[in-house]
């Protein structure tokens, strides 16, 4: 049923295929990239797209296509790991506060409210200003500041699922609380989490690009879509290809994840679709 409905949605299918291709490109970057993304070639600086360099070269003569392909690795890795961290924290806190309720629930939910009040991007900026900006720190910081939505979602699912009769039935056969939470309730609560996780990847990729663009994300010479864009900004009057292609890469990726996420949501619950 899920697959039948999903397939009918052309946009979602487009998103899924694009995400699939992107992941393939990122995974096999060394095979796809025509050049070494960090090898400097001072004889071919800021060359427009040509047969040798399909997307041109940057201010140090590096091949833009290769840098975008390697950048896909960084962007997707940041997206997945950051969302993985946020999903883990969100599911754990949401499950415990939804299942047990009481003061723990109150504390967690007020903490979520507080976290939601702080503009996340500035929190990340502030955190990274104090820490060394490497890829692991960026993943961790994005993950630690984006779990609140998942926590609320999981908590709401748990609140309604824990009252269902099959949970009582599970207790009657002697299942422990731990077993009920992770084996009986969680699998029933995962579909909305899946949607939120897929949409979350898009958000994390955007945040990483923005950080790298501002120069506090992924540090050159490692390629990231954000820092290619940043070097494009300095040369925008003479080298349009340096800004346009990484920009398109970000746009297509984020769009693809959003379409995929919304497609999954509509396929899970067709009533949501207007």
């Amino acid at each position, binding site marked *: 049923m899920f697959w039948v409905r999903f397939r009918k949605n052309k946009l979602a299918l487009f998103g899924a295929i694009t995400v699939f291709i992107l992941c393939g490109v990122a995974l096999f970057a060394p095979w796809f990239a025509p050049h070494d993304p960090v090898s400097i070639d001072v004889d071919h600086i800021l060359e427009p797209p040509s047969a040798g360099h399909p997307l041109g070269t940057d201010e140090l003569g590096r091949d833009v296509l290769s840098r975008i392909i390697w950048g896909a690795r960084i962007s997707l890795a940041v997206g997945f790991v950051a969302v993985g961290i946020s999903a883990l924290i969100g599911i754990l806190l949401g499950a415990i506060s939804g299942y047990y309720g009481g003061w723990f629930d109150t504390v967690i939910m007020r903490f979520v409210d507080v976290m939601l009040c702080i503009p996340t991007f500035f929190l990340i900026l502030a955190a990274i200003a104090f820490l060394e900006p490497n890829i692991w720190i960026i993943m961790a910081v994005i993950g630690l500041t984006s779990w609140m939505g998942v926590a609320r979602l999981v908590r709401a699912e748990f609140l309604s699922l824990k009252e*269902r*009769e*099959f949970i*009582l*039935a*599970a*207790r*009657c*056969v*002697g*299942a*422990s609380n731990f*077993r009920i939470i992770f*084996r*009986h309730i969680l*699998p*029933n609560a995962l579909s909305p989490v899946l949607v939120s996780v897929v949409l979350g990847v898009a958000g994390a990729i955007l945040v990483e690009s923005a950080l790298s663009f501002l120069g506090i994300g992924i540090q050159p010479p490692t390629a990231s879509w954000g820092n290619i864009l940043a070097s494009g900004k300095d040369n925008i009057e003479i080298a349009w290809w340096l800004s346009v292609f990484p920009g398109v890469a970000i746009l297509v990726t984020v769009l693809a994840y959003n379409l995929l996420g919304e497609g999954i949501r509509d396929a899970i619950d067709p009533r949501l679709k207007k």
Partner: protein
Amino acid sequence: MHETLLEVSNLSTSFFTDAGEVRAVRGISFFLNEGKSLGLVGESGCGKSVTALSLINLVPYPGRIIAGNIFYRGKDLLQLESKSMLDVRGKEIAMIFQEPLTAFNPVFSIGSQVQEAILTHQKVSKKEALNRTSKLLEDVGISQEGVIENYPHQLSGGMRQRAMIAMALSCDPSLLIADEPTTALDVTIQAQVLGLISEIQKKRNMSMILITHDLGIVADRVEYLAIMYCGKIVEYSLAKELISKPLHPYTSGLIDSIPDISRREKPLRTIKGAVPSLLNLPKGCSFCDRCFMVDSLCRLQEPQLRDIGAGHMVACHRV
């Protein structure tokens, strides 16, 4: 052989709601010997299901057991730590629910749920658990190819209830509590499922508490009957005796309101009035407003359950 398996004394369970204390179970006592069966009969809201949940200490919030003892094989279940209670549930006391569709987890297959119940309590390999699962499904008569991999929504109501019985039997419990096991089923399937339950109960020499609102379907399947009204047991006796010589006016009312197809011309007799609110019970007998032989004492003083000979107990001033 006739050892006491379960002895409940003065069990009281209340729900503490915003509107006040709802006294769902008000000091009930009964006992059940090994291999015997008890029918717990009463209308909706009389505390039957709350009694069942109290027995395995799973009264939902805001309910709480406020008094009483539940001795199972001599140990008080209410004094047990929650961890040892986990071993009692399913392994010693198993339960069958009214609506088998909602009592199964929708995302796992029937087989894996029965198998899991086995693995929770018994140290056996997964393969052995799977073997036992197919054996159990065979015992309850749904051994057809594929049932073990089916999801709950793919089975019919009767098959689901049979699967539920298989799950309850998975760890060979000594006491089976069946809470309205056939209410959600077709009349034609009801008899089959009840027959299966009593057959298995006799074959395995289990004790059973069969909870129902329908006196007609349990009367010839259990050894003892307890009639509940407003959270109290109002009459308790051997099933045969209770059906042939009902003493409490509520019991006779229940028996009279069983439809009889041979008396088609006459309108079905009912008990007039409605159950009083458990929030605001009358001072005397809780049945006094609906009783045809009520007198002044009934309105003043609550009758206690007393033995009027040969183990036939009744709580009525007028008997």
